[in-house]
């Protein structure tokens, strides 16, 4: 049991938990959409990437589609000045809300009665489209994202406990917890939240009591888009805004497996478990088998979990009636 005395162990634990929080941020977006529309939105990660790209674009005063426009002789890439961060964030929010509306009109409405697997594959297609459009609009090079969040190791913690913990990750944890609390309360106690849950349960019934599916979907995808923006900002501030951000979405899937697809708190707990599990496994077992186990550990863990509990820790049990 020596490892419990090793302060490094705790650093790993905390680092793992914080990484898990980052995963959870992406997973939250998934849960929202799934709760309200039964759709497994594969493009959530790309949405985060797109949101982050848009934010950086506004901040640095980029002209959208500049590269494409250069084909027609228009060679300017920047306006000359960017928007202040707060305005840029606001504009990005509007963009995400507008994007949500487009997605509802073009993709969701036509597919309204299809089974989950069709919708899932449609979101894969959507992910590709968004990726391409994001690249065309803002360029595919890596961008640095800075929204004024504190960065660097926390001196306070470093001095008192000798542990190296990034302030950025702490901010991310705080933000994530706030988000989860807000969303959980919203879903459980507000009229809109109830409407969302009604829609998730039964489209037809919800329609028959006067809930407009289109509006609900738009709201949900907008909220998801905002969550994606938050996730994109956090991830982007940490490691730069680049394509690999969308791969994080894939990592969010095991998070959902553990936490259940319909539970908001489950997303956090699942994220924490995955983040912690990954780091611990890589640190202790990784060296014995060559390392880089973080590429697959989360999925294996999720797979094992699914075998014993197909609905995740907090999800609703799937009962099939004949």
């Amino acid at each position, binding site marked *: 049991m020596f490892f419990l005395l090793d302060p490094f162990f705790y650093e790993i634990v905390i680092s793992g938990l914080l990484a898990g929080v980052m995963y959870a941020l992406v997973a939250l977006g998934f849960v929202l959409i799934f709760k309200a529309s039964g759709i497994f939105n594969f493009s959530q990660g790309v949405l985060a990437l797109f949101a982050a790209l848009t934010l950086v674009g506004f901040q640095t005063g980029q002209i959208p589609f500049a590269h494409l426009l250069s084909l027609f002789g228009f060679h300017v890439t920047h306006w000359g000045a960017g928007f202040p961060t707060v305005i840029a964030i606001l504009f990005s929010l509007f963009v995400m809300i507008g994007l949500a509306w487009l997605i509802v009109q073009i993709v969701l409405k036509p597919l309204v009665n299809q089974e989950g697997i069709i919708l*899932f594959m*449609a979101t894969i297609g959507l992910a590709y489209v968004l990726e*391409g459009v994001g690249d065309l609009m803002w360029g595919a090079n890596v961008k640095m994202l800075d929204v004024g969040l504190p960065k660097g190791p926390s001196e306070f913690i470093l001095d008192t406990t000798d542990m190296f913990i990034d302030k950025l990750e702490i901010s991310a944890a705080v933000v994530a917890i706030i988000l989860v609390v807000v969303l959980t309360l919203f879903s459980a106690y507000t009229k809109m939240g109830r409407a969302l849950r009604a829609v998730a349960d039964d489209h037809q019934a919800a329609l028959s009591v006067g809930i407009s599916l289109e509006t609900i979907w738009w709201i949900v995808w907008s909220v998801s888009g905002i969550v994606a923006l938050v996730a994109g900002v956090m991830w982007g501030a940490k490691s730069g805004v680049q394509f690999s951000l969308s791969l994080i979405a*894939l990592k969010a899937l095991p998070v959902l497996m553990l936490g259940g697809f319909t539970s908001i708190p489950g997303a956090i707990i699942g994220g924490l478990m995955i983040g912690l599990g990954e780091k611990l496994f890589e640190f202790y077992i990784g060296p014995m088998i060559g390392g880089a186990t973080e590429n697959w550990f989360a999925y294996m863990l*999720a797979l094992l979990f699914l075998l014993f509990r197909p609905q995740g820790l907090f999800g609703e049990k799937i009962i099939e009636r004949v």
Partner: protein
Amino acid sequence: MFYREAGDFKTSYKSDQETFPLKLDKILFWLTIAVAAFIVPLFLTEYWEKAIFLPFFIYALAAIGLNILTGYCGQVSLGTGGFMAVGAYASYKLMTGFPAMDMFIVIMIAGLVTACVGILFGLPSLRIKGFYLAVATLASQFFLVWLFNKWEWTYNYSATGQINSPERDFLGVIVTGPYTKPWATYLFCLGFLFLFAWIARNLTRGRIGRSWMAIRDMDIAAEIIGVNPLVAKMSAFAISSFFVGVAGALYFAVWLGAAEPTEAFSIDQSFDILFMIIIGGLGSILGSLIGAAFIVLLPVLFKNVFVGILGIPTDIAEFSQIILVGALIVFFLIKEPHGIVAYWRTLKGKLRLWPFPY
């Protein structure tokens, strides 16, 4: 007028179940095969071999494999890239371990190995369904790629981690390595595609195929009529993986000649093949071929026309391609979930009646 069905009555069950019930269809099919087998090789250049035909044959084979699993049996898999890797590395070990072994045997054994791995990773499908299963297959995808990166035995302890295909032959004709003749590799891969397409046709038209489709459409009802879900699902995984493994072995040994796991067998590969069967047509062998042709030829088209002729920069062409593929996926899922092959069938239906409107 030409494409007529009236008067073409079937008088036996055998003729009713034929692959090509219309005589004209049958003639056209064999004509195409004859041209493909005898005429094309005479004029084949290395460019056409390496850029068009080999990738088409190989991806078509992989697409048929995935279609068996996903289109016919309804088990969504995102692990196709990983399974192609299994086929590739198995063939590598066989080629390097048994230099005298004929390539046909190498490829078939590689397929067999992949089938076994497929069964192993297919076991979760007994408990998990739908897109939960799709996500579980990601586990196999990422794990396998990692495995072939880290487990040095698989690449013979080479320092670069890359595997290279040594020169080997099929019945005396060299089909792998740097000194192959285009017609040799072309016919070798075409032969595999033809053989496996035939096998796929036979399996899907009979009892096994029906058991797969029953599981796909309603697994509870399938049990009622006596289908053992374990046998049906595992057979789908095994046979599908066999196909994909063979494709992976050809992909590495005959086409690319060298491979490295993260690039050649990535998750993008898995998605590409999934897109092929969605666009081409789920549950259809012809659809797999059409989809493969589409996805293989699209970048070639973009490169030659948009970049070459219109002078559009490569990165814009690349982004546009990504957007186009994604948009087509969404389009097909909305408008025609049965893929291009459904349009093809409608077209043929209209042709049968032409020039009469009804």
